[in-house]
């Protein structure tokens, strides 16, 4: 075929993003047709705190041809049914964001609107009592939904909590057996062609590595997309106040939770991610209000088990590259942008970007129109996630610290304020793009948890009859609950099926 094809790709940087890229490239394209080299340095550590995922991650594993059970065992992974948010709306109140569906359509009416209709006609069962993942999480029980076809939990979904370092190692092994070559070395210099395309990477030892296409996984340093190609970074510091995180690992105490906990703090929020072998913890905060030492002290006072690592400080800047793909460089992970891990989207964005990149796979010329459309689509994803994250903050009722007062009164992006407004007034959810990541049940969960309920159910529910609907809902909720109680606990499930 044409000789203009990309024959050689260099991935700069290991870590989750780099090895994920290597694994996907080598799985999709045989090594005879595409040479993939990954250069990383032992001297540069990886961040490796992205340990909580969302359900499409399981699709990624399958896509790579990886055996789920083997992966879970080797990465010490545990199951995640959603996220529990403590103290976000008000101090002392919690809500749950489950994976999968909440109830099923009633006739032509989506479940949320049917529930709203019933609630406004006297039902007093909370929304999440109809979400199988929420009920399982509350009972700390687990079963793969596809092993319970036809049961009340069929429409649940799940993701994984995993050890990022072990994941990078697993993917590295996967990629290397498929022919990806690993080069140990520090990149000292980058050479470009006359047209500005990257030509080669020169290592400290003087090796010259050239390729047709480069993937920038160098983290916040953004060696290629930022330093070399000078693509601007759009900062969201005026919309998302947090700019630092402290991370620490602890021993597990008791049975692990089947969910990520995100507990609001005075100046940010704390995560707790239970793996099979240990837990990951962290405090994401706004350095404007507290110091690292204060944040460390706050975190250490709240963690449950004994710390097994020293607290690590991770500074960050929320935002994204103006172009995720520019010339012959694709940026991934932190090099391309950063959104705080409140909804566990970091690894997903890497996968999503790569998945899209395969759909747009260019030749050596890297057509600009192609890159433009690609960048438009990926930017939509970033904006969607950003809006979703801001919704967690700006809807708060808290006014007990300067941080929360700021959040409560912050200027909201128009796309989000319209979404909230439209929802309040008509119970309709405004779309963000043709392939949204967070679908209706996610928005319903956050809105309901943050006290946003439409003035009235949507007209689509007007055909329902409360006299039939309410008894029906009063029947299926306990059925779900009773069924969940017959399931194994998360710990039992893991021990039987996929113990590390």
């Amino acid at each position, binding site marked *: 075929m044409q000789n203009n094809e990309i024959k050689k790709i260099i991935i700069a940087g290991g870590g989750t993003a780099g090895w994920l890229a290597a694994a996907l490239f080598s799985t999709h394209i045989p090594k005879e047709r595409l040479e993939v080299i990954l250069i990383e340095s032992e001297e540069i550590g990886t961040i490796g705190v992205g340990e909580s995922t969302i359900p499409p991650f399981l699709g990624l594993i399958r896509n790579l041809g990886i055996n789920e059970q083997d992966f879970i065992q080797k990465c010490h992974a545990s199951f995640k049914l959603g996220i529990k948010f403590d103290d976000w709306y008000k101090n002392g109140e919690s809500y749950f964001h489950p994976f999968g569906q909440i109830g099923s359509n009633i006739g032509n009416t989506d479940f949320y609107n049917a529930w709203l209709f019933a609630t406004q006609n006297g039902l007093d069962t909370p929304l999440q009592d109809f979400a199988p993942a929420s009920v399982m999480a509350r009972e700390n029980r687990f079963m793969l939904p596809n092993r319970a076809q036809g049961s009340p939990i069929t429409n649940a979904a799940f993701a994984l909590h995993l050890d990022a370092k072990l994941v990078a190692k697993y993917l590295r092994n996967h990629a290397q057996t498929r022919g990806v070559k690993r080069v140990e070395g520090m990149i000292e210099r980058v050479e470009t062609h006359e047209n500005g395309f990257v030509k080669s990477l020169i290592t400290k030892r003087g090796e010259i590595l050239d390729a047709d296409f480069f993937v920038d996984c160098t983290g916040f340093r953004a060696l290629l997309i930022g330093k070399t190609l000078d693509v601007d970074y759009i900062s969201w510091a005026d919309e998302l106040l947090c700019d630092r995180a402290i991370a620490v690992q602890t021993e597990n105490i008791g049975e692990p939770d089947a969910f990520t906990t995100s507990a609001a703090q005075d100046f940010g929020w704390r995560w707790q991610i239970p793996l099979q072998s240990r837990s990951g913890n962290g405090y994401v905060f706004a350095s404007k209000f507290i110091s690292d030492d204060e944040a460390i002290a706050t975190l250490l006072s709240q963690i449950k088990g004994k710390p097994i690592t020293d607290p690590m400080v991770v500074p960050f800047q929320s935002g994204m590259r103006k172009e995720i793909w520019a010339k012959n460089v694709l940026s991934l992970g932190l090099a391309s942008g950063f959104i705080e891990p409140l909804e566990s989207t970091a690894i997903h964005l890497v996968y999503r970007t790569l998945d899209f990149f395969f759909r747009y796979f260019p030749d050596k010329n890297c057509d600009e*129109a192609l890159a433009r459309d690609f960048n438009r689509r990926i930017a939509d994803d970033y904006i969607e996630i950003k809006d979703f994250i801001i919704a967690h903050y700006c809807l708060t009722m808290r006014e007990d610290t300067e941080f929360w007062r700021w959040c409560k009164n912050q200027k909201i992006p128009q796309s989000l304020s*319209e979404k909230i407004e439209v929802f309040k007034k008509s119970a309709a959810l405004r779309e963000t793009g043709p392939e949204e990541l967070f679908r209706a049940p996610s928005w319903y969960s956050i809105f309901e948890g943050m006290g946003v309920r439409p003035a009235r159910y*949507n007209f689509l529910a007007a055909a329902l009859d409360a006299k039939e609907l309410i008894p029906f809902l009063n029947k299926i909720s306990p059925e779900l609950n009773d069924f969940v109680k017959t399931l194994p606990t998360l710990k039992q499930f893991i021990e039987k099926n996929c113990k590390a």
Partner: protein
Amino acid sequence: MAEIKNIIIVGGGTAGFMTAASLLNSYAKANIKITLVESSKIGTIGVGEATIPTIRAFYNELGISDAEIIARTGASAKLGIQFNGWKNKDSSFIHPFGGFGHDFNNVGFWHYLNAYSPEILDGGLDNLALGAALAKAGKFALPDPLKETTPIYARFDWALHIDAGLFAKTLKEYSLARGLNYIDAKIENIEINQDNGFIKSIILEDGKSIEADLFIDCSGFEALLIGKALGNEFESYDKYLLTNAAWAMPSKKIENPIALTKVTAHSAGWQWQIPLNHRTGNGHVFARDFMNDDEALKILEENLPTQKLDDARLIKFTPGRRKSWDKNCIAIGLSSGFLEPLESTAIALIQNGIERIKMFFPFNGIDEKIIHEHNRIAQKEFERVRDFIILHYKLNQRGDSEFWRYVAQMDIPDTLSEKIELYKKRGHFVRYSWEIFHHISWLAMYSGFGILPQNHEPLVENMGRENFKNALSHINSDVQNIVSRAPSHAQFINHCNNIAG
């Protein structure tokens, strides 16, 4: 602002009665009064006789079956549209309601064709889509319920050719049986509330005034409320869409018609042919700047498939749209906008308009934010369809008349040129929100017009030429097998008419 308790629909016809039936059905248990005012002295346009599959969901939701609609509206089945003479004078291709071939390893089927069988991608896709293959052979079969295991080429949907007058009549009866307050009268005047500019009432010819909280304008091109009374201007698309008139003329029924709408290009427009059970709908859509009315009529008469049943009627139009919700008035159908019926979208746009009314129904009073959101979506949806229609002209390679030469080189909206450019370069489909036509429809067009991507998708080599050719021949023989066993289209229609009694 008070709750909405009273709705007046202005205008009968397809839009008016679809709106009435749907709202009455959804509203059965809500305490809202629905009135429809039409004058039996004013005719309806009723040209929307070809539909797309969404219409079936519409009447199914009302509790009306396919067979019942087929029997009551003299309908025939429709598996797609056959485009004759569009690419060049002798070309013909089908835009079916369904997918082509099969994707392998998450790589689109067309990429494989482009690399290994470009002669098929160049206008020869019909036999790789079961719906199209059935239609071409004069056959019809109901699609298998959609399962994950159903191969893409066997996934298809179907629509109907209907007599729009009979369809409206069916829905009128349905509405009356469900409590529609029906008034047959001409509207003399519209009264506006001077405080807020809202519509207060409509004054009938006998001087009687009727009030409502919400008005639905289904008055057709006249746009009595949304246009005349509220002063919303019409945004014309005549820069992109040159046709502005149509001669419509019924002819005798075609015996054993195939399940396709036929659209045939002429020198300054195109002709539709829609087979019904009792007659054939025909029409010639043309650009008056390039052809005079007499010539256009002559072309239609010369190209009728059967003997004519009635005199031709000239319908003049301007393509374009206007704001569809303003104050307490929502426009549905032609009052909100018009696009030539090349892709049979008129009824689908009405249907989506009704869905939007329900989605944004102003229970607790009318709110600017909601209006804004409603209009944003309506505009996007309409512009996406517009772009798809423009595509049909832009891609022609006829070169045999001033009209076709002009439209091949005219400026087009950026949203469309971006799409065409990326397909040409890379076989890539740009996707936007609120598109009625998905990538398979665009693929049908590109293929029919012989537009192939310049570059090959490198991932196809993972499957390789030989494996692909084997898969292709399997698909071909599978399609042919199913087609050979299927009953004829006429048998299917007879069956429906029999069971509906």
